[in-house]
């Protein structure tokens, strides 16, 4: 089972979080802790663990104290500015999950056409929808990239045919809205952030 999937950037800012288990209590003290706070703690701890590791060390990490237990493992990959971290238990194959991350990122790359951190920042919902076609309820649903992309596209088309969330008039107005902003925040000091997807040999 996959317990959680976290994507955050080099500074620990979350870009996507997906918990498949309900973490709501701090491990050490018994005082009640809200799910959201717990999730943020887990993100911080995970970032702390992952960020201090060199790029040329192994991609596995014994679980942190919060996402507890010896049965858990953090399996992560670091692409450009983003960390993709999967927290899994012992029923998952370590190399298999590494490959799954690769499949996921390649799928993102296909769906967003040269995915970069900005895509994830502004389209968190879309990333979620893609992830939903890969992992469901903590279990691997599909590993075939073409199948995933096909399903995502059909659903996007459905959304389009319904007019989408923000239909045309709203988009026209967004230019007006932007006038109120001090600057058009299109390129905010993020340099070359394209996630370069290295071609890895299939596992």
């Amino acid at each position, binding site marked *: *089972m996959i317990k959680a999937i976290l994507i955050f950037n080099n500074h620990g800012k979350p870009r996507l979080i997906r918990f498949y288990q309900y973490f709501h209590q701090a491990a050490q003290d018994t005082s009640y802790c809200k799910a959201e706070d717990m999730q943020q703690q887990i993100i911080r701890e995970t970032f702390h663990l992952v960020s201090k590791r060199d790029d040329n060390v*192994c991609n596995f990490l014994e679980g942190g104290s919060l996402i507890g237990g010896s049965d858990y493992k953090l399996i992560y990959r670091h692409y450009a500015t983003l960390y993709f971290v999967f927290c899994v238990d012992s029923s998952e194959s370590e190399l298999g999950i590494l490959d799954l991350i690769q499949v996921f990122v390649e799928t993102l790359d296909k769906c967003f056409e040269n995915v970069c951190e900005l895509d994830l920042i502004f389209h968190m919902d879309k990333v979620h929808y893609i992830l939903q076609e890969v992992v469901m309820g903590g279990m691997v649903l599909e590993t075939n990239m073409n199948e995933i992309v096909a399903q995502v596209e059909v659903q996007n088309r459905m959304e389009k045919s319904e007019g989408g969330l923000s239909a045309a008039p709203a988009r026209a107005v967004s230019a007006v809205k932007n006038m109120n902003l001090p600057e058009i925040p299109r390129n905010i000091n993020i340099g070359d952030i394209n996630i370069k997807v290295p071609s890895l040999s299939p596992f």
Partner: protein
Amino acid sequence: MALKIVKGSIDRMFDKNLQDLVRGIRNHKEDEAKYISTCIDEIKQELKQDNIAVKANAVCKLTYLQMLGYDVSWAAFNIVEVMSSSKFTYKRIGYLAASQCFHENTDVIMLTTNQIRKDLSSPNQYDTGVALTGLSCFVTPDLARDLANDIMTLMSHTKPYIRKKAVLIMYKVFLKYPESLRPAFPRLKEKLEDPDPGVQSAAVNVICELARRNPKNYLSLAPLFFKLMTSSTNNWVLIKIIKLFGALTPLEPRLGKKLIEPLTNLIHSTSAMSLLYECVNTVIAVLISLSSGMPNHSASIQLCVQKLRILIEDSDQNLKYLGLLAMSKILKTHPKSVQSHKDLILQCLDDKDESIRLRALDLLYGMVSKKNLMEIVKKLMIHVDKAEGTTYRDELLTKIIDICSQSNYQYITNFEWYISILVELTRLEGTRHGHLIASQMLDVAIRVKAIRVFAVAQMATLLDNAHLLTGNMQRNGICEVLYAAAWICGEFSEHLENPVQTLEAMLRPKVATLPGHIQAVYVQNAAKLFATILKNQEGNTDSTAAQETSQMMIDRLPLFVQSANLEVQERASCILQLVKYIQKLQQKDVEVAEEVSALFAGELNPVAPKAQKKVPVPEGLDLDAWINEPPSESESEDEQPKAIFTKEEPKHSRPRHTEVDEKELARRREARKQEQANNPFYIKASPSSQKVYQEAPGVEHIPVVQIDLSVPLKVPGLPMSDQYVKLEEERRQKERAEKKKKEKKKRKEKRSGRGKKHDSGPESEEDITPAHVVDIVTEEMPENALPSDDDDKDPNDPHKALDIDLDKPLADSEKLPVRSHRAAGAPKSSAEDGEAENATPQEPKKKSSKEKRDKKKDKERDRKRSKEEKKKKKHKHEEKEEDLLGGQAEEPVVQSEEMKEVEAQPTSTSAEVSDLDFWLSNAPVPSNTQEAATVAEAAPAPEAPAGTAADSEPEEPKDTETEESSSKHKKKKQKKEKEEKEKKKKKKHHHHHHHSDGGGEESVQNGTVEEEEPLPPMSNYCLLAENSYIKMMMEDADQVCDIQGNLQDGSQVVVSVIFENKSDSFLKSMEFNVLDSLNSKLQRPEGSGPHDGLTVPFQLPPGVSNEARFVFTVQSIVMPQKLKGTLTFIVKNEDSSTHEKLDFKLHFTCTSYLITTPCYSDAFAKLLESGDLKSSSVRLEGVNMPFHHLLARICFHHHFSVVERIDSCASMYSRSIQGHHVCLLVKTSGQTVSIDAKCDEPTLLGNVLDEIKQTFSQC
């Protein structure tokens, strides 16, 4: 109005969407929190609007804020609203938000049940998919129970996309609702062989998750998985299966033998590292399971170790890590084969990657022996010095202690060395593990009696140099060690060389800076030391030394009396007074030493960690009972200040403690001893009967170890363990030399006999004897402790509930609850509902009333089922005489026809078990695995006749009939048969049927009409159409009114049709089509024309039946409707396939538009008084049935609920899907029933009454 809309849409244009929100947050980096809080306010405004698009947008933004850590649970209800939108775009947003922030305690979840059910049965596969995905994240026990059957139906959906999601989510359903596992398992198993690889992989995934926790229940699937393993090419599936085998093989060693060959082949052939690695892992598991039985697998071990070595030597850090991980598994059973790679592992200790170093450390744990322990620890100590990060260093420290203390210090031959290692470890700066070192010191000093002298000496130096440890605030963690040091010096003070010096060290002013609990131990042990010193000095003629010691105590102790720590203060003042008293006696030249040391007499023995838990609770003791009634809260508040108050003036109350005279003390001691003798918790001084080790020698008999004084004991903080290593080596050499001498002698003696083979090469483990007799005292346990090994199990493990035997035949009581559309009017339950209704406000929310209705239905179903049961029994008795298969009559009738597998299982259970045996035993030599696989395939064949027999059996005509059923129309009887089957299909867990079996049967047979007489079974399923191939049964339409009434969705009617294959051929490509009328339309998926048929989402193997649901939209409900339809399907035989067609007519009665709605009598009275209702009445003659049967029939067939019942008069209520109220007043006298009815729609009322009349004319 129009203006309002325009205004709304303009407002909307200025609403932020998700991108705007993100952009805004990025633009307000300095005051992000403030900006977000204004955004949340905006969102709250947006959520208040009626426009669902605005709401969806707001919910989408909330999902983003949730990720940033903002609590959005306040919007849970809005999320549900968005979920229930009919547009996919919004629905998807709603489900995403729900899956991110709903959890088991979210109370609005219970409102979603019907919405999710509706989405699950949606004709659009993506609606279903989104609902499944969402549900997988927030499924609760209630949802699981209510939706299990719907999800199970989806497992046979036509679209593989839905099938695989449905299969995966079943795992979550099992976890939350374990009762569903057994009924669902046959179908899950079926999916292992699904044509779609995705579905197959999902099924493997689920079964692997299940089997991982409770492997023994899945052993019978081994042949099937074996077949998959040898045939599948999907690495994902292979990995999962191989992992599963790893879990199964410990339970069945024969399985392991069978696996080795194909796994070895895979290891040699695969290029995928992940697969190779998992194969190696499973081979290791196999070898572990075989380790006792089969000696000849060294080749496989070698292969594994070799492959792992290659992995470890790989430049890829990931492979290196995994190689070490797998290596540690081999280590457990085959340590020798790993130990030869010690070089490699020690090399990994130097790796730059911490994960790898940690794994290598784990390996070291198993690689130590008596021989190499010192060497390995020495190496680790070097690493400790080099380590930079404190975490890694702490890890090293714990590992050193783990390695040394493992299995009761098995590998330590020289405890002086170990103590000095511990002392060295105290030099670590900033370690968190001070307490760990301390507890090791205590443990060793207590349990290894022979080491006490040495330990005490070391601890005394530690105490003397305590400033080194405490000098730096950063070293705080380590000062815990002083706790152990002080205690050891005090407890075993008789071994101290210079007790006065130690006492002086313990009473230094600096001690007052230590943490309180350590100071307390200092004070207490200073007293122990003092007692020892007195005892030593008593013999001397000169008493000044003793008096000086007393004076020192009196001088120094006041410092502790002033301590802020209560414990320290209490102990110090107690002891201070004692010492003062002793001093007085000393001045009078009274000998006090004896009495003072008696204060601390007795010896402490170690207690097993579980000892306390294992003390059996004495009979008659209720631990949960209150001893005193708990005080009320207000009282406890009053008490608190008192506790603070006593702290302020402790000195006044203290002195009287010391005024107790010696006699009193002695008396108390005696009493205490008595008490202790009877107290099972107290550790007695006398050696326990359970000591396994040799008689503990008295203190005076402890062999005094000669300590080589070349070891600089007095210099703390200097590595000295090395010296011990050298000493130990010398000692060993000496020993060896002696042994050789002895052997030589022996050899000389034996020379006349055969030649001695013993080689004097490297010493074996056993040759190394400990430096001195290590007297490890075993832990004590209470006398009557019960041996048990279930201590480690977690009672909260959700998987425990899934430990279910899957091979047992499915009992009737275990079937999944199916949504039932009938509601027999049980007066009691409706009254309950009425009350519940009363509690809720006047206008109850549609949803909640629906919930209640569901619950009520459940209850009623339970009741009905129990009646059903009796009925069945009776049938069975009759059949027995007629039945050709008399012997089987008991079983198959109970089984559902729908699931062939379930049915086949009872007859084949034993066969299957023996299959496994056969499969396993048939191939003792791994070389003929191929053959075995084919055998496995062929094996199910013998089951087939039994299965078909079971299938055909219910079709047998039933000639003998009961009185009642014979009076009925032939068709009706058939229907009843069917309906029984239907009922059986509804797998509902219920509790009543066991005790209702016996008595009920009689009451039916003698036909007496009693109040308790069970209702005859009823069903709304009626035969729709039938031909030689297929039988269609329709359930009288069932209504689902959209939960969100305000959404433009019209009234919907769901029709459940059961398709039953009566032929021996396979039926597929079934298409269901209905000619739409102006009023009623079949809902078709988007994009299909008005005349297109709907594909039935399953195929029917021979003898199988399945249920499909079709949704109709209805405009007007006042008139009954008839719709013509056709079912086309392909009949597939072995050689040919033909296209067939079956016409049918769907009859929507007005009754079918009524929803059972409970109504409270007050509301009912108001409704009647309002005068809006038109009335009508009908008289039924010749109704020959008890009144409660009559009511039940009306409730059941016509969806009414009983509002009130007085004798032979009852008021009933129902509501149509479009909100018409229908009220009935039913009166009976003799055989005449009169029904007065009122309704706000006269046409509807007329039709309903006609239908009621018809129902009763039929019987």
